[in-house]
Every structure is written in structure tokens, then in C-alpha cells.
């Protein structure tokens, strides 16, 4: 039964991609549809590159992703490794469950929590700062804090959930290896370094590769909820800009053009990263 999946992929995966590519080169008019709209060539791409904000958007998008790569990506690995050392299975399961609860909290709630905690007049963080004799700061109005706040919220929300994959990989490691190592006199630290880490390395590399493919994208819902004109300087990313200009103003051609640009860049990045991975390790996507 190869046909149904084929049809599925044709209709729901390939046709939309082709449509998006076509729309990005048209002055797409939602009322006239694809066949009635006029061709525009690369107008929307050029328009995007010429935007006053192009540089800023690119920088913000890349920086937030880079921060996420440095802080958010390794965190679940470390978390999984640490939890793996806990021998009491009840505590282990409890901690694990609690850790992935934030994943189920809606983005809107996460954002309003951030607003509440960071509020200068009643927020917990500011109340603590005042106890230490520091001044109240309006964190959400200062562009300098935005990257930090976003990265922290992202980390808090995804930590436990992302760790699940690593837990799965950990259970796949042959326990005999540990026994053999212990016989050879390896301590806990040696075991982690020489058995556990190499054991989950393929998972880490695959996830890293996939992540690099999305370097130009960010789940922008949280940003839309957290930013304000005052923090556009650091908070406005490609996704939010396209949301304001493409979706709200129903300029779908522009939105598609930017989407296509993101995908092409993502593809390039993932090809390069995959090449590097193949060169330096045994794991790669293809």
C-alpha cells in the first residue's frame, strides 16, 4: 500500500510547497487565486532584502537562535545525564514528570507569567532586587534584556520535554557495558564520559543537525506576546515582521517569499552541517 501515503504527500506536502513557491513570485490576490493573479518575479524577495529592517531582523533572528543553541540545546542533555545518575526510581520519575509540565502551558500563559514576574511595581523579581538594595527595572521595556528573557522562557518551557528523547536514548544503552566498566575499575564519572555520552551521541548530533536547519526560524508566538515597540530593536525577528506585514495586511506573496528564503537558507545550513558531521563523526542525517 504505497499509494495512499504517496497521495497524501502529494496533496498535503508537495502541492503546498509548489504553491508557496509560485505565490512568492506573484502579486497574489486572494480573491483571484493562483490562476488569476499576476506574476511579479523576484519583486517580493528584493523588497524584503531592501527593507530598512533587513539587517536588524537577520541579526536578531540569528542571535536568538545562537543563544538557544548555546543554552537551550545542551540543557536537556545535562538534565538527562544528571537525572540518569539518580538511583531512586520514584524520585526520578517524579522529577521527570514535573520537568515537562511547562511544555503543556500555553504560550499566552507563559507570556503573561513573564509580564507578571517582571513587572516593576508588583513583580517578584523586582521585589527581590529591591531587598538587595537595587533599583526597580522595567525589564520588558529595555531592549538589552529581551534576548535573555526570551532564552530563559524558552529554556523553562522546553527543558523537560526535550529531555524525553535523551531518556529514551539512555535506556537503549546496553547495561553490560556499565558492568564491564565497573569491573575494569571505572568510577561514575568515567562511566558517564566513556559509555553514556557516546551512547547518546547519535541522538545529540541528529537533533543538533535538525536544529541548525531552523536557524532562521523562531516560534514567534512568544515574541509577539512579549515584545512591544520599545524592544523592537532586539526583539523584532523575521517571523514577527512577516506576521505584521504579510499576515495582518494579507500580503501572502511577501510572506511566502520570506518563508521560501528561510527554507532555502535552512537547507543550505543543514547541508553544510551534515557534511561537517559526516567528516568528524559517524552520525549524519544522510
Amino acid at each position, binding site marked *: 500500500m504505497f*499509494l495512499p501515503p504517496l497521495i497524501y504527500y502529494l496533496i498535503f506536502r508537495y502541492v503546498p510547497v509548489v504553491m508557496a513557491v509560485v505565490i512568492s513570485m506573484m502579486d497574489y490576490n486572494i480573491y483571484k487565486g493562483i490562476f488569476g493573479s499576476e506574476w511579479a518575479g523576484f519583486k517580493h524577495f528584493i523588497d524584503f532584502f531592501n527593507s530598512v529592517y533587513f539587517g536588524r531582523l537577520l541579526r536578531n533572528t540569528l542571535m536568538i537562535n545562537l543563544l538557544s543553541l548555546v543554552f537551550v540545546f545542551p540543557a536537556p542533555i545535562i538534565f538527562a545525564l544528571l537525572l540518569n545518575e539518580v538511583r531512586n526510581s520514584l524520585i526520578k520519575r517524579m522529577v521527570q514528570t514535573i520537568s515537562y509540565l511547562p511544555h503543556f502551558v500555553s504560550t499566552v500563559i507563559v507570556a503573561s507569567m513573564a509580564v507578571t514576574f517582571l513587572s516593576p511595581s508588583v513583580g517578584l523579581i523586582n521585589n527581590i532586587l529591591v531587598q538587595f538594595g537595587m533599583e526597580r527595572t*522595567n525589564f520588558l521595556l529595555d531592549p538589552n534584556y529581551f534576548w535573555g528573557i526570551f532564552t530563559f522562557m524558552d529554556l523553562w518551557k522546553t527543558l523537560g520535554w526535550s529531555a524525553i528523547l535523551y531518556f529514551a536514548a539512555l535506556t537503549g544503552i546496553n547495561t553490560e557495558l556499565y558492568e564491564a566498566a565497573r569491573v575494569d575499575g571505572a568510577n561514575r564519572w568515567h562511566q558517564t564520559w566513556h559509555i553514556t555520552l557516546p551512547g547518546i551521541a547519535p541522538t545529540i548530533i541528529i537533533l543538533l543537525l535538525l536544529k541548525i536547519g531552523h536557524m532562521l526560524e523562531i516560534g514567534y508566538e512568544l515574541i509577539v506576546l512579549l515584545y512591544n515597540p520599545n524592544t523592537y530593536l532586539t526583539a523584532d525577528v523575521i517571523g514577527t515582521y512577516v506576521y505584521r506585514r504579510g499576515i*495582518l*495586511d494579507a500580503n501572502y506573496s511577501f510572506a511566502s517569499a520570506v518563508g521560501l528564503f528561510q527554507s532555502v537558507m535552512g537547507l543550505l545550513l543543514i547541508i553544510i552541517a551534515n557534511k561537517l558531521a559526516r567528516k568528524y563523526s559517524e552520525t549524519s542525517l544522510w
Partner: protein
Amino acid sequence: MKKERWMKGITGVILISVTLVGCQTGGQEKAATTPDAKASEANKPVNANGKILDKQIEVSVYMRPRPESVESNELLWMKPISEKTNVNFKWLKAPADVNDYIEKFNLTLAGGTLPDLMEAPLDLLNKGGENGVFEPLNKLIEQNMPNFKKIIEQNPAILKDIKSDDGNIYFFPQISAVKTINLQIFRQDWLDNLGLKAPKTTEEMYQILKAFKEKDPNGNGKNDEIPFTTRSKIKGLLPFIEPFGVSFEEDFYVDNGQVKYTFTDAKLKDALEYTARLYKEGLIDKEYITNDQKIWESRFTNEVSGATFDSFPRLEALEKLVGKANPKVNLTGLTPLQGPSGIAPFTKSQQNLIKNGFGISSKSKFKTEIAKIQDWFYSPEGQLAMNFGKLGETYTMENNEPKYTDLVMKDKNNAPLIKMYELGHREFAYQWDIRYENAMVSPKLAQIRDSITPFIKPKYPVALSFKQQERDVLNSKFTEITTYKDEMMNKFIIGSEPISKFDDYVKQIDKMGIDAVLKIQQASYDRYLKR
């Protein structure tokens, strides 16, 4: 073997398509039975059985939801309406947030299967109408809508606002009763506590806010007051801007027939300087940019704030809210302030004559029927039902004047308007009447509201429409300008950018192409005048 697999797959596809087609024809058959041929009866507004339509029909509606209640034909308010019209309204799930709402509206249009009746901002309805998505209503109005025809014949201003540039009408308007919308709301009891009079000028305003901050009007012995707060971000600061002769309410204004851009006006510089001073001295809520409704309300319930700028019915809602903890609370509404430049006090914050509109899908099977029920909404009887709900339960008649019952007026928790929504009041397209609104608000509020009316200055028309090439320019240039403008306005106010940089900011906007935008606005405005 291989052939068999192919057969299975193809059968599957055929099965699915048959089911889909089946669904479609099902709908059409049902539609075909309704009386299109009976157009001769069109001019009879009501049938023998007292209903607008002979047969019950189902009309799907896409409109803004109310967080206070779910849409249902069974709610106290809706029931008499759906019974009278013989329509079973099928409510489609729509997002409450404005941006989400517009996004879904656009996507629904792109999707192709349209609900019969759609609510949207006027510009979107005209755009859709000109592209053939919404039915031109001129003929339907002529043939089926005596009540509505009378309204537009008597009010040419309404006709001008609802006509598209191509001469057609594409939507039914929701016509407002009053112009007043936002005003400055003040704690009168705080003013009394400090022995102060309501401010009339910007200077007095400054002094009073300062007194609010320093003289502990809430009497808790702590210096915890945030004199002025808002929940509507920068627009909430409007009362400090308008006294200088320029208004955040509109991106453009007309000066001697010339369209100009508000945010590069030289008068704005003084306005921002004044506002920045208030902000710097802590007289305006430092968190005005991030405040939401919840925090805004808590500022009042905790009695740290004594002034805001908000829609006039909120005055009573706030009073009720604060009154739970402090029954002595007394709120008042202020008229616009006099600025130092000698410009007469005014406001441009106002309800548009046409608030929203409803378009009929050009593919709808019930165009005539919808026109008929819609006409009933505009009839005196329909207006009564839309505004007042069910006789005997939500309103009574006294000396021929409708009056809300205690069910609406004396609710413990809700202001009357909110209670009405809870009972199922929906803002369809109909005409509001000042008589109705007066019945809803208390005499005190009505008086405050009426005191604002003389200060209202006409606003830049919202009913402009644009051609595709014009939209392209607006979309690329104006979105960028707006992004930059939003960023800079807040920076000037909170002081992260000194006001001395204002001229550089104006230059930057010029560089971003405001001229091209103004040219388009001018052309569209001229077309509007000629309608």
C-alpha cells in the same frame, strides 16, 4: 498483485471524492427548496404568521465573539430575534483578538467556502466586494429593504461612508448612536480629599497629578500612588497629546484639503515633551506599554491610581469594581484640556458613524432572505429587539419609552452593557438610537457623555478605499514607517531618546518615503469626497 494495489488505491480516492461531493450537493439541495421564485412577495415585510420568512433557513455567520457569552440562538436576547426572523443562525468560531480575527477572515476568503454573512472592518469588505466575493447590495436594497432605504435617504453621510469607490454598496453598516467614546476618568473623591478642582489646562493637570502622587489621596499613609494609568498602551496617553493640537487617533489629517501625516507634525514635539515630563516624574504609569486589562483594573481596585483615559461606559464599570472595596468611590469624566498654544480644546477620539459592516457572500443561497431579515434589523421593531431584547424580561415599555429591567440594570457584578452581552446581545448590523443608549446608562453617565460631545472634531475618514497598486506601496512603505514610528514615540515618552532628536526622526520618516504614502492617501481622499 501490483494491479490490485492500484485498484484499491483508486477506489479509495473515488470513495473519498464521492463523499465530499455528496456533502456539497446535500447543501445545494436544501438550498434549492427555499423560495427564490417567490420574489414577488419581496415587498411584504412580514408574513401571515408574523414571521419575516415563510420557511426556516440556516444562515452561517462569521462575527466577533463576546468573551462574556457563547453564541447561541437560545439565549434570552437572541431567541425573539431568531424566532421573529425565522432564521437559525449558525455561529462560526471566530477569534476574539482583532488581529487574529482579521487573519482568520482573510484566510476564510482565501479558502473559498464562505459563510453567508461576514462581519469585518469596512475596508476589507469593500476590497472583497470589488473582487466579487461579496454581493453588491444596491439591487437588494432597492427591492427588499424599505427600512434601510429610508435610513440612507435621510442620512447622506451614511451613504457616503458605505459606498465603495466603484459606486456599489457591499455591506450593511452598524450605525452608531453617539460620537463620544473615550474620556478622562478621574477619582472625584480624591480631588475632594485634597481640596482640588478638576483640571482644565495641561498645567493644572500636571499640578493635580503631582498632588495625587505626593499628597497621599488614598490615605493609606504610603507614597504608593501611580496617578495616571492606562490599558490601551500609547493611545491611552491621548489626553496629554491633543491639547497641543495633534492627535494619535489618526495617522493622517486634512489641512486645507491637503492630507498630512500626524506623526511628523511639529506640534507633536511639544506634546511629547509634556508627556515625557509627566512620565519622568512618575505621574504616568511606568508600565503603560505592557499593562493589560488585568493590571489596569488592579491599579484601581488597589486604589493606587486615580485617573485614566478610557471608553465612557467603563466609568461605571470601574466604579462598580472599586466600589466593592471602597463604597465611597466616586468617578467623574473630564472634558479635553486646554493646551498652552491657545488651540481650542478638542478630541478626535470618537465612535465612527459606521462602526462595522456585514457583507453577504456572493455565493450565498439566501441573498434575498438575508436582505429581508437585515431590513427588519433596521426597522423600528427590529431595532427595539436588537437593542432591548425580550419584552417583559429584559425591558418594559413605560409611556412608549423602552426601559431595561433590573435584570440588566441592577446586576451585582456587571455593568449593564456587559450584562447584555452575557444575555446574548450580538452586535449585528442595525441602527443604534440615542434613546436606547440613554436607557442603558445612568443619568450621571449620560450627562458626562454629553459634556464631551461639543469637543469632538471630525476625524480622517475610515471609509477610504485603495487600488491594488496603491495597497502595494502602502504595504511596503507604510508598514515600515509605522514600525519605526511606534518605536520612536515610546522612546520619546519614556525618555530613552531625547526630544531634541525629533527633527532627525522626521528626516528619517521622509527618507522612508512618507511622500509616496501621502500622495496615495490624497488620491483616495479626493475620490472619497467625490462619492
